């Protein structure tokens, strides 16, 4: 019987791969530690076009959204306790979110070195939401900031997720003569609301 492509590729790879080389030791990298990861996160995210806001409760988040964006537009959230804002209808096709002006969602944690927040499908449900909205607002307890991506993956560990994404700032492009433009296909702005330590979100 002739070999199929899978078998041919695997055989060619096996024949041509060099003798086994070990993985580097876990101690091979000594990652940078920041004196103040929260301040580092703020400065990096602001440096890449994000907005950082420190809030004490969800009322302040709702007030911020109402004051910052055009009235009468569609705001949606995936956070159940944010009762002032419409909940996302996950039963509808993602395409119906096309007219969403502001989407508000929760992140699991953030990374100081690059200003990214980590969001998984379990809190998102509709994966297109953080991309299709015009403006993205992310809620994050301010103590949930790790130093580097190494810590980020330590924290994620072997968790299972259907989909997960690190988001660092608004969607952007510099394809036209290296001129930075915010709002390529996704959100034109990204705001991270850092919730004070004494706040316990009941999401």
């Amino acid at each position, binding site marked *: 019987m002739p070999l199929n492509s899978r078998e041919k590729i695997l055989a060619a790879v096996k*024949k041509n791969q060099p003798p086994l080389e070990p*993985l580097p030791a876990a101690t091979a990298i000594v990652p940078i530690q920041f004196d103040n990861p929260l301040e580092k996160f703020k400065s990096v995210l602001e440096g890449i076009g994000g907005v950082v806001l420190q809030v004490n409760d969800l009322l302040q988040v709702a007030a911020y959204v109402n004051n910052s964006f055009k009235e009468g537009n569609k705001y949606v959230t995936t956070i159940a306790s944010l009762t002032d804002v419409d909940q996302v209808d996950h039963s509808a096709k993602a395409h119906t979110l096309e007219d969403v002006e502001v989407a508000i969602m929760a992140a699991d944690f953030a990374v100081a070195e690059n200003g990214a927040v980590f969001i998984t499908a379990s809190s998102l449900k509709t994966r297109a939401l953080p991309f299709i909205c015009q403006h993205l607002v992310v809620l994050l307890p301010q103590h949930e900031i790790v130093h580097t*991506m190494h810590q980020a993956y330590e924290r994620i560990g072997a968790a299972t997720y259907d989909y997960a994404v690190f988001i660092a700032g608004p*969607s952007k492009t510099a394809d*036209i003569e*290296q001129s930075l433009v915010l709002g390529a296909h996704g959100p034109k702005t990204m705001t991270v609301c850092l919730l004070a330590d004494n706040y316990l979100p009941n999401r």
Partner: protein
Amino acid sequence: MQTHNNHAALSEVFNKDEERVNWHDETLWWVRQKRDKAAWTLPEWEQLREAASKIKMNTLSDLNAYLKEFEKNAQRNGIIVHWAIDSQEHNAIVHSILQKHQVTEIVKSKSMLTEECHLNEYLAAQGIDVVDTDLGERIVQLAGEAPSHIVLPCIHKKKEEIGELFHVHLGTPAGNADPQLLTNAARLHLREKFLSRRIAITGVNFAVAETGEFVVCTNEGNADMGAHLADVHIACMGIEKLIPQRKHLGVFLRLLARSATGQPITTYSSHFSKPQPGQEIHIILVDNQRSTQLGREDFRNSLKCIRCGACMNTCPVYRRSGGHSYHTAIAGPIGAILAPNLNMKDNADLPFASTLCGSCSNVCPVKIDIHTQLYKWRQVITQEGYSPAGKTAAMKLMAVTLSKPGLYRLAGKAGRWCIRHLPFLVNNRLNPWYKQREMPAAPEQSFATWYKKNRPAEKK
């Protein structure tokens, strides 16, 4: 598609517009400087490069097992896995998925593999409409060109040219070249495509054997817009894109964007593990002679490449000759060591398109010995009889001259005399050393003559 030609001839075309060459050169150098700044913020930068290189070496040395592990885990996650031995099979698999779903219009985010396989041309011939959704790729697609850089596809284009293209194709106001306005026009144009097309193709930056997930990095969000709004997501990857474990993403995501553009990370690093309810995810694992390169001891390191483009931005030849002069999907130093594996005859000129200065190897985030490989490819190509005819003749003449001292002295004398008395013999277009530069003044005498006159008296 551009017609095939050699690097030197195509560079000459690019070099006709000196102002544009200088602009291209400076723009890429600016990106290189951003990379340096980003790298210097991390004291552990060299540790990261070393670790990344070792992780990739381990991957390559156990690739057979990692591929099987990835396949098993991806299938367990509900992803459909395909294997393609070459570009034809890859393209046929994509087409068969489109046919199964009766789809003739698709969106595609950036994938250098699909460029390597000439997927767009193949699908166009089957009557399929492919819209590239990365802004830079859409621009070159509208212009009927190939990307000239793997990260910055239209780095060779002036905004005025893009304004004109958009005026013709997207109806933007004539003469308007404002990047903000043009980007917004593309945003509206492509949003309509994202919302209406049922199949999306993306590339893959990293695939994790341990978990069966794969990661796609973009700044624009176009991969996610395409994939999440489509019924079917087809992800195309070369088999060398694997990494062993999820935690290794920490190493590579720290290196990739810093090396590419000087950003701390791309805006989006999306981890695809399972399809959405009602959606299909397909992965096509493509060999296309990667397994051959794996067997070439001197060149297998090239398979570590994570496609950051740092070697292009730093390369004095790339910056001054433009990506299209490399006539391959992947330009620059890395392209010049990958392409001869795909077709040694057609790409025999590329390893010679280098000064061997080594800057590419110094910035490579996975420590590929690029300039050493360029040098080694030259030897392989010459041994196989593919070196450019002019170069072979010149080398033979030089070997004869250098082996006969009398002839060498005579040639030197003749050269100096010519430069002084018949400068038009050397200062002309037939002499490649004269291109873009003046010939130096001829010295009064040869070093040998000078030395004879000036050497200290020999001790008796």
